[in-house]
């Protein structure tokens, strides 16, 4: 039984203040996933660094192995970086009016596709030149690191494709776009690091 004084005390209490979420659940989940993926790539980069340091006479790429197409990949790198910048504009446009983000998201998606298709064509050419995953540790690390990034790029394209579809249907929310964007930025920002380590 509540006494009169207790009831009065309850009435006097201030209304609880509802705190907005610091981060959307999806974004938080994606950030945790990206942290784990960063550690995976850090492990691969470290292994690459150690194996490279063990090669006698600092001969890297090893004798008899084809050279990687540094300049062609630089163009792909630029395409991927531009896609990241375009996605920033898409995000800003979405905040003003959702439908304004359609075109920049589509451009980012196309640039991502250009990157993946160009990388695929590069792989076909390198396989033709004799660089395979078993031809040397050089080939092994190339296909492992670049391939792992390529799989992430494909996943990012699928995610952004889904976001684009949802946007056209008028169902995309800000937190969904932010979640997909976090993954896209991860793929975009990781690539220059991998390019410097693997290609140069």
């Amino acid at each position: 039984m509540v006494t009169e004084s207790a009831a009065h005390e309850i009435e006097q209490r201030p209304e609880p203040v509802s705190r907005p979420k610091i981060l959307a659940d999806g974004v938080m989940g994606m950030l945790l996933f990206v942290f784990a993926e960063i550690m995976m790539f850090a492990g691969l980069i470290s292994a690459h660094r150690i194996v490279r340091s063990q090669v006698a006479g600092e001969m890297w790429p090893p004798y008899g192995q084809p050279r990687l197409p540094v300049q062609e990949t630089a163009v792909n790198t630029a395409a991927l970086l531009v896609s990241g910048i375009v996605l920033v504009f898409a995000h800003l446009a979405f905040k003003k009016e959702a439908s304004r983000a359609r075109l920049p998201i589509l451009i980012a998606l196309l640039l991502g596709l250009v990157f993946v298709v160009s990388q695929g064509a590069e792989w076909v050419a390198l396989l033709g030149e004799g660089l395979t995953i078993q031809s040397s540790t050089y080939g092994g690390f190339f296909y492992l690191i670049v391939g792992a990034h390529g799989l992430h790029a494909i996943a990012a394209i699928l995610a952004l494709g889904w976001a684009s579809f949802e946007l056209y249907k008028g169902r995309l929310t800000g937190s969904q776009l932010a979640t997909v964007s976090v993954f896209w930025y991860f793929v975009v920002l990781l690539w220059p690091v991998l390019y410097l380590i693997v290609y140069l």
Partner: protein
Amino acid sequence: MNRAWIPVLVLAVLAVFPDVVHACPVCFDARDENRQAFLATTAFLSLLPLGMVAGAGLWLRKRTKEIDAEIDSETPSDR
């Protein structure tokens, strides 16, 4: 009994022991470049997760303070 010396002793054992049992790739390698690679990657893999967690923690702290300030400015003061 003063046990303040225990952490120092543990640290000394941890620092010296790998050296004694030759279990430290950073300590023994004929090639200086290889030794440096081990050292650099050990530091990289040790500091990267700490940096990410610290960065996330600092950002969350900053964001919480911003939200608190927004709530304070919206709610009327009882003073």
